[in-house]
């Protein structure tokens, strides 16, 4: 089964990448775009198991390594 961890910068944390992309989109003529925020997804292949447990494991990985909770928050989906 698959766990997808999505990591995004916490609200209020500066997002230089999002800012630059927003700027580039404006230059390309997409002037209607407002704020842009960039995050990442980490897709994990896990052995078949109880989805709730898989989710708990993936959350554990996120807290320990995948996200830096000083600046980032995360959510986990099981697919």
């Amino acid at each position, binding site marked *: 089964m698959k766990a997808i961890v999505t990591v995004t910068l916490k609200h209020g*944390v*500066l997002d*230089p990448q999002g800012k*630059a992309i927003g700027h580039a989109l404006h230059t390309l003529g997409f002037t209607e775009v407002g704020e842009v925020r960039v995050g990442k997804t980490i897709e994990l292949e896990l052995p078949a198991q109880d989805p709730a447990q898989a989710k708990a494991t993936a959350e554990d990985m996120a807290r320990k*390594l995948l996200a*830096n909770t*000083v*600046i980032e928050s995360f959510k986990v989906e099981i697919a």
Partner: protein
Amino acid sequence: MKAAILLFPGINRERDMVLAVRQSFGHAPQIVWHKETALPAGTDLVILPGGFSFGDYLRCGAMAAHSPIMPAVKAHVERGGYVLGVCNGFQILTEAGLLPGALLRNASLRFLSMDTMLKVERADTVFTSKWQTGAIFRAPMAHGDGNYNADEATLDRLEGENLVAFRYADENRNGSARGIAGIFSPNLRVLGLMPHPENLVDPLMGGTDGKPLFDSLAAA
């Protein structure tokens, strides 16, 4: 002062650091592989050099912060030992929670490799005693993620407790909050900074502006 340089896979400025330390200390530091679980007996100063530990994948310093050697580094800090983290080393220290804040992608989203000017914010530390407070010196920088950030309360505390070590004195090229280039821990025994004083310790390489850092430590 007995120094140990930590070697994580992907680190690439350990040789530069050895040269700088050897020159000021008169002897070579010991290199410690990241899979070790203990520091060499009698280590006074732990150095985390620059580079791309684990390729800077995921987040700079994130994986190194979980290396087997890191519990020993934390214990060393708790005992009041000295730690210097430069560039990737600084990133590892923040990821490990040994210094506050985080180093985000440079505001320009480009790698920045050039000399910068740094202002010494305080000279009453083991790391900076050979400078005067307010002194300005040159240091090469070479990083893609040197944009220091922390929440406002943390930044206020750093300033209030006089824990900012260095600030960019010419141009704040990477976008760091309040121009911060380096910070101390509250006990002034842990220093992290982005630029590379170790690359300017020899007139042949363009100057000796970075040497006071190592001379200060050697004198401590």
